[in-house]
């Protein structure tokens, strides 16, 4: 069992998928099926890294913010009725929190770089969170966006030379995939809510940004990832949830695949 859990493929795909599926199946009657992504991600963190907070590195801050996003999302779903402005507000909050995550790296740069890189980090995080959270009412599109954002950030991170961030991203995608599978089977009874959309967007934004700043991922990859929550809004065919989930995932993977292609091309010396 222990040896099985040492396998990186198991750690970042099977384990978070199974953990996410169990969480979604147990919690969806409570309108908390969206916790699948957070639970899947946490399962991978438990076996790959750990939940230690000292020293509070960038990757550990990402785990902390992921947990806070899941808690805040749960609170928003259960205690409030999310509106169209929820995404914008959550995005602004996440953009500020992202600056805290990368403060140790920004602190080593000259003021002009701090302004440019800091503004870029905050803007990317705000956009990804605002546009993804606004999908909270649509479990199919939200699940497809989570799947593509997680896997896109994960595979791009691996191409950007960070396996740890890659595993974290793939775990997020696997947990979201488990949620989407339940949606495909049960249809509209499974709610995504702010719980899912806030967790996946915050974590995907931070993982991809970390791969740019801590490894060698090209920044243009972030632009392609930012298109994921836009493309999933394209029209879906009338029909069963599973069919809509497949089509929405195809839309989302056009952007996520584009992000990975950019990362791969940049790794081979391609420049703009």
């Amino acid at each position, binding site marked *: 069992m222990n040896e099985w859990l040492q396998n990186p493929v198991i750690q970042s795909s099977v384990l978070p998928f199974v953990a996410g599926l169990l969480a979604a199946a147990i919690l969806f009657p409570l309108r908390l099926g969206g916790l699948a992504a957070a639970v899947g991600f946490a399962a991978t963190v438990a076996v790959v890294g750990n939940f230690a907070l000292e020293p509070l590195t960038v990757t550990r801050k990402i785990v902390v913010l992921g947990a806070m996003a899941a808690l805040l999302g749960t609170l928003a779903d259960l205690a409030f009725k999310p509106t169209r402005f929820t995404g914008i507000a959550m995005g602004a909050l996440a953009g500020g929190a992202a600056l805290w995550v990368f403060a140790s*790296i920004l602190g080593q740069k000259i003021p002009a770089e701090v302004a440019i890189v800091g503004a870029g980090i905050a803007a990317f995080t705000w956009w990804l969170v605002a546009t993804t959270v606004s999908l909270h009412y649509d479990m199919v599109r939200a699940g497809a966006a989570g799947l593509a954002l997680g896997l896109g950030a994960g595979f791009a991170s691996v191409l950007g*030379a960070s396996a740890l961030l890659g595993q974290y991203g793939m775990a997020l995608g696997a947990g979201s995939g488990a949620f989407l599978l339940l949606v495909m089977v049960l249809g509209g009874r499974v709610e995504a809510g702010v719980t899912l959309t806030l967790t996946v967007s915050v974590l995907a934004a931070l993982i991809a940004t970390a791969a740019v700043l801590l490894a060698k991922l090209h920044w243009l990859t972030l632009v392609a990832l930012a298109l994921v929550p836009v493309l999933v809004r394209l029209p879906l065919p009338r029909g069963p949830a599973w069919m809509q989930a497949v089509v929405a995932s195809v839309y989302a993977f056009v952007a996520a695949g584009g992000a990975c292609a950019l990362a791969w091309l940049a790794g081979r010396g391609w420049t703009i």
Partner: protein
Amino acid sequence: MKRITLGALALALPLAASAAPENYTLDPYHTYPHFAVEHFGVSIFWGRFDRSSGKFMIDRAAKKATLELTVNTASVSTGENDKGSRPRSLDEHLRSADFFNVAEFPRMTFKADDVKFNGDNPAEVTGQLTLLGVTRPLTLKVERWVCKDNPFNKKPMCGGNASGSLKRSDFGMKYALQAVSDEVRLTVGFEGYKD
């Protein structure tokens, strides 16, 4: 009596001068920390840091010494820096968050003030190694220690080799522990010029 005392003092003066603490600055062009790890438990894989700096003090009479070594972690080099058809080279991977996380932790430091002597020469140096924001004790055995004048510029210099081992997981570097050994052998070749 006064003359005898003054004479004795005059004779002792050069000895006192030589017993005073001596400060040395490490020569960055001849000071290189190397590391060795096992790969899949098969071969020993070597790497080094190309840029480091520091200083040391030695007081042979008092049997005391201190050492401060700062290593630029971004200068990690295994000789495998050509990515070829792959997205990234090994050196680029070593600089990422999986290993040395150089963007966040650009420096590794070793500060020591507990030095055991074997005669007039330092034999064992114990201090604190800070890597990835984590500080742990580390002991280096001094395997070679030579002091002489540089034959070209005649400057007094001391140097040698020291080595020790650490567990990288103690510093939070846990990536690929199945493939790359937890135990890291550290060997430092160093030379310093008297200030």
